[in-house]
């Protein structure tokens, strides 16, 4: 299977609010794919749809299954961590591990206990007594011990302090990712994850605004600090975004050959964060 | 048909209830169960029942 996720025309409305307005998403196996978007863009809805936690219209295939009808079978190969603490508050840590061991065929208890031994989490405390950072550590410890094909993370480090955040991504990359496993991660803190992504997707107003491999970004997008005399030529090439940068104007171009842009001024590849702003403002203009 | 029943929670509920009542009513007729069980002496209630029957005619 070359694409672990294939989604076409996903639509979901809550009353008159369109959370997803025709989302197309293709995620290849082994990718670390980011889903970036502002609050309310549809990130959480899209991710929940992938795991069958949200009923959507459209074509959807995850690991060869339709999450809407085969959720429980799919969950043997997929794991999910949300931005909020979803672990049941009344469970003791040891009881939660017992539960996952009982219900999940691919769970290795010893691995979880190994991961937990490096933390301060006591086995007989209830989840509600743990700090937010510890709960995420625990959830990650459970997930690391499950041999899954796909990991779906919905803003997993939201509200955590920097130590927990760094440790989270370290574990993810070092202990979990092996090139065959796929990670889909949503966040609005782009800078934190842009270094580890292989693929990038922007979502806004329930639609995908960008979908590309990180290595292609430099070929497609160019940012130019335009010399004042070249402004007119720059305008003629249809920039997708213009911003002020230290008194000068910085233009962002999509799919314009670098040869055409070089005479206009200093060129460089936009950071993901700047590209995000450019594309968001871009779709708002349309 | 499946698409209609599983469109949302409301359509599913209606489908389940229709099935349930149909089975109950058919079984009731077949096995000759007692069809009525409420015998109210409240004159206002009798009035309402009469209204319904008149409406049906």
């Amino acid at each position, binding site marked *: 299977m070359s694409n672990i996720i294939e989604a076409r025309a996903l639509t979901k409305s809550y009353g008159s609010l369109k959370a997803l307005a025709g989302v197309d998403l293709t995620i290849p196996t082994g990718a670390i794919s980011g889903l970036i978007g502002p609050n309310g863009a549809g990130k959480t809805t899209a991710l929940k749809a992938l795991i069958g936690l949200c009923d959507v219209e459209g074509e959807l295939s995850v690991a060869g299954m339709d999450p809407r009808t085969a959720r429980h*079978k799919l*969950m043997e190969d997929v794991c999910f961590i*949300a931005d909020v603490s979803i672990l*049941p508050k009344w469970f003791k840590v040891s009881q939660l591990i017992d539960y996952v*061991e009982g*219900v999940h065929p691919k769970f290795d208890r010893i691995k979880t206990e190994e991961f937990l031994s490096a933390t301060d989490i006591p086995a007989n405390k209830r989840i509600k007594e743990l700090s937010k950072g510890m709960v995420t550590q625990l959830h990650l410890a459970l997930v690391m011990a499950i041999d899954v094909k796909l990991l779906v993370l919905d803003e997993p480090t939201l509200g955590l302090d920097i130590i927990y955040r760094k440790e989270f991504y370290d574990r993810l990359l070092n202990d979990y990712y092996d090139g065959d496993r796929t990670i889909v991660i949503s966040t609005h803190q782009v800078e934190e994850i842009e270094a580890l992504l292989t693929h990038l997707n922007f979502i806004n107003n329930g639609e995908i605004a960008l979908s590309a491999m990180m290595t292609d970004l430099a070929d497609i997008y160019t940012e130019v600090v335009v010399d004042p005399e070249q402004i007119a030529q720059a305008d003629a090439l249809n920039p997708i975004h213009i911003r002020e940068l230290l008194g000068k104007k910085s233009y962002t171009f999509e799919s314009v050959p670098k040869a055409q842009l070089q005479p206009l001024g200093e060129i460089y590849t936009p950071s993901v964060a700047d590209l995000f702003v450019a594309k968001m403002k871009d779709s708002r203009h349309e | 048909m499946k698409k209609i029943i599983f469109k949302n929670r409301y359509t599913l*509920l209606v489908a389940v209830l229709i099935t*349930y*009542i149909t089975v109950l009513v058919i079984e009731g007729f077949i096995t000759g169960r007692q069809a009525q069980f409420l015998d109210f002496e409240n004159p206002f209630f009798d009035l309402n029942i009469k209204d319904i029957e008149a409406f*049906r005619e």
Partner: protein
Amino acid sequence: MNKFHLLQFHALLQREILEHRNMFIMAPAILAGLILLFSVWAMTRMGQDTVSISIEYMALLFDGLSPLEMAPIFMIPAIPFIGIFYFCAIIYLMNSLYQDRQELSILFWQSMPVSNLNTVLSKLVTIGMVAPLFYIATMFALYVIALFWLAILGWSYDIEVAGLGYMFLAAVASLIFVYLSIVTTALWLLPTIGWVVLFSAFAKRTPILWAIGVFILVGFLEEFIFGTQFLGNFVQSRSTPTQYLILDFQDIVERLINYDMLFGILVGSILLAGAVYMRRFID
């Protein structure tokens, strides 16, 4: 059904008991404690003579008699336990598929490879077969304590206390009937249970209002369309916990397996199947 499925189901049952330990473990324990306290207080009020005569009477009454025949007497002390159990059972069923959607934990439960069918089944087996065992165990402990206490008291009054042993056996036999009654009543009430669980799965808010409101509406519609009240009739026959008491083993097979029981299981299953499919719509 293979070993993994059994293990998974066991983990699901464990979760239910742990999650509701207040209802299944604390509640009967507190009730037993209150009964003991009340008994101690009553005995101090009764005075030594009355107490010793009562113990002597109990020992004589049960002496030499078959525990199975004398068991029904002990349904009376079981009444408060059964009452509390059914009250908790209603709350449990109403919340069974509703509460986890109100909290965020539904996102965790649904991220585990547990089918909706197994989720619903585990909750039914918990309330119909497993939870009652905790109540039975508490009553058993209560009867053991009562036996020792009365025996020691009786011995100190120089009463022949062997009969108390027969009384204890009758009490223990009654526990078998209590358990059997609860399980068969649960099966008998399956249509009602199914209705409650269906709305537990369906409602976004106040499932009990939906369950009652739709019942009234559907009953009205049935009357209007068919001119019948089969629904009302049927529900009336499937509404109280005392409708299926098992107090002896006479004709036990026909009493457990008959047309009405099977028909109830069939229609209850329709509603429960609806609840299982309804789990698709959790947002």
